[in-house]
């Protein structure tokens, strides 16, 4: 009977959204219900165009629902999406910062590739805005562009560097999404930034960020992980670059007090990085001990992660891993038959 109810509701909504006298306020209410119906798996495509209109004509809260509906209803190559561009352009130039934020948010989620040139200059401009939330969202919009059309943002790499050095941590953190991707594609082009990433991580780990960025007393864990991943890529097969990071990796291992789950998440990433970069024996030793603690943990999620790390270690360099493996195995109470087999190489 859910089907019957929803279909009835949908017919009623269809009538309401098509009626010329419907107020924007009512439209907003309808839109919320349409989102709900689509979530349950029913088709409400008759409402898509009205979502765009709502974003275009509505006041703040109505606009916000309109944009949300668009992000949920449409996909990147939907024809209707082109109709949103004018609204986005208008909102990007609004004096109301909340509207600017909404426009930047929608661009970061869904935007037609071929219309990037229409908004790119406006967004680049926002990189220098006095409000950090605008700068941050502008970086994220550019990240989206980098994902869907990298050659269109090729010319503004210099601006990403500026974002990396932004005085606001949130803006800097946002730029790391772009850097991680670019470094994955071509690490050699960014070796010169290793020092910067190391410095930032040192500051984070050393507790130099505003307390507000703490998550359960751990400083900016997602930021730490991004940096660890970046460093792992930069130091791979490169002794000189790796040497720049041994200190901070060591400190990350030390600082992480095994209290909250998120610390384990960071440690896992740290261990992964240590085993990805040019090997340094003391660090590998410490990392191996760390894995041991994971695998020993009574908490099943941590055991899982420990075994995953163990797998990575073993595959990375079997000869190197063998000596450390013994450390780990010594920690295990009941050696698994698979591990026993492993030891009998």
């Amino acid at each position: 009977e859910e089907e019957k109810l929803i279909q009835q509701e949908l017919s009623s909504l269809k009538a309401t959204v098509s009626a010329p006298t419907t107020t924007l306020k009512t439209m907003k209410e309808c839109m919320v219900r349409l989102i709900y119906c689509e979530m349950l798996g029913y088709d409400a495509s008759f409402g898509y165009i009205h979502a765009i209109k709502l974003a275009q004509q509505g006041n703040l809260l109505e606009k916000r629902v309109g944009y949300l509906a668009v992000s949920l209803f449409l996909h990147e190559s939907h024809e209707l999406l082109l109709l949103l561009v004018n609204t986005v352009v208008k909102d990007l130039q609004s004096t109301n910062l909340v509207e600017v934020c909404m426009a930047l948010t929608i661009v970061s989620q869904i935007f037609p590739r071929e219309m990037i040139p229409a908004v790119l200059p406006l967004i680049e401009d926002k990189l220098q805005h006095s409000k950090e939330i605008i700068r941050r969202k502008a970086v994220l919009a550019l990240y989206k562009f980098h994902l869907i059309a990298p050659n269109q943002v090729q010319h503004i790499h210099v601006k990403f560097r500026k974002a990396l050095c932004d005085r606001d941590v949130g803006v800097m953190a946002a730029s790391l999404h772009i850097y991680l991707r670019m470094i994955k594609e071509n690490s050699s082009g960014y070796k010169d930034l290793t020092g910067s990433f190391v410095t930032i991580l040192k500051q984070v780990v050393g507790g130099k960020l505003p307390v507000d960025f703490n998550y359960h007393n751990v400083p900016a864990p997602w930021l730490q992980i991004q940096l660890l991943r970046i460093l792992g890529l930069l130091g791979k097969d490169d002794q000189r670059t790796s040497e720049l990071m041994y200190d901070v990796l060591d400190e990350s291992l030390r600082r992480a007090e095994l209290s909250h789950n998120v610390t384990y998440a960071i440690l896992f990433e740290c261990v992964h990085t240590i085993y990805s970069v040019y090997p340094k024996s003391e660090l590998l030793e410490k990392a191996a001990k760390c894995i041991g603690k994971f695998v020993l943990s009574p908490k099943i999620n941590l055991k899982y992660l420990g075994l995953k790390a163990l797998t990575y270690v073993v595959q990375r360099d079997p000869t190197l891993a063998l000596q450390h493996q013994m450390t780990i195995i010594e920690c295990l109470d009941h050696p698994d038959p698979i591990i026993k087999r492993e030891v009998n190489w």
Partner: protein
Amino acid sequence: GLGGQGVGEDSFRVWERTFCRGSRPRSPRVRMRFMLLFSRQGKLRLQKWYLATSDKERKKMVRELMQVVLARKPKMCSFLEWRDLKVVYKRYASLYFCCAIEGQDNELITLELIHRYVELLDKYFGSVCELDIIFNFEKAYFILDEFLMGGDVQDTSKKSVLKAIEQADLLQEVRARDDEEEEQEE
């Protein structure tokens, strides 16, 4: 996918599979495919997709995954392998929060992402419960989009996420009050 019984079985199976079949390198882009919120009765409360997927395919995947997760026992691992994805899930009271990630990611941090989201909802709604999500699900989406942009976690201060949402709410309130006053004066 893993439907293992015992506490240790999940993890050892992953070890076996990963080790015996050779290494699986980290994919170039680890990304979130989708996030779902659903009740213990299998009622969907929120879904956010980060990769364009047809409605038909979405329905199929959601239905299948809900079944798999709902069948899990309490003491089991919060991570499971399903289709070509890693699923990280956690139950909070009557709601299951479920993330599907591609590639070889750090499942534990994804679990924390879920927790972070719950904390934000809690702070916004003031001790959140399923009803809050049902009746204000668009707000739940706003909050999600603010801290999980395009599937990537924005490590920002908790304050800034909620401030962004509240700003719009507040402006709307002020405007509504102004409208009311205007009407009264007429």
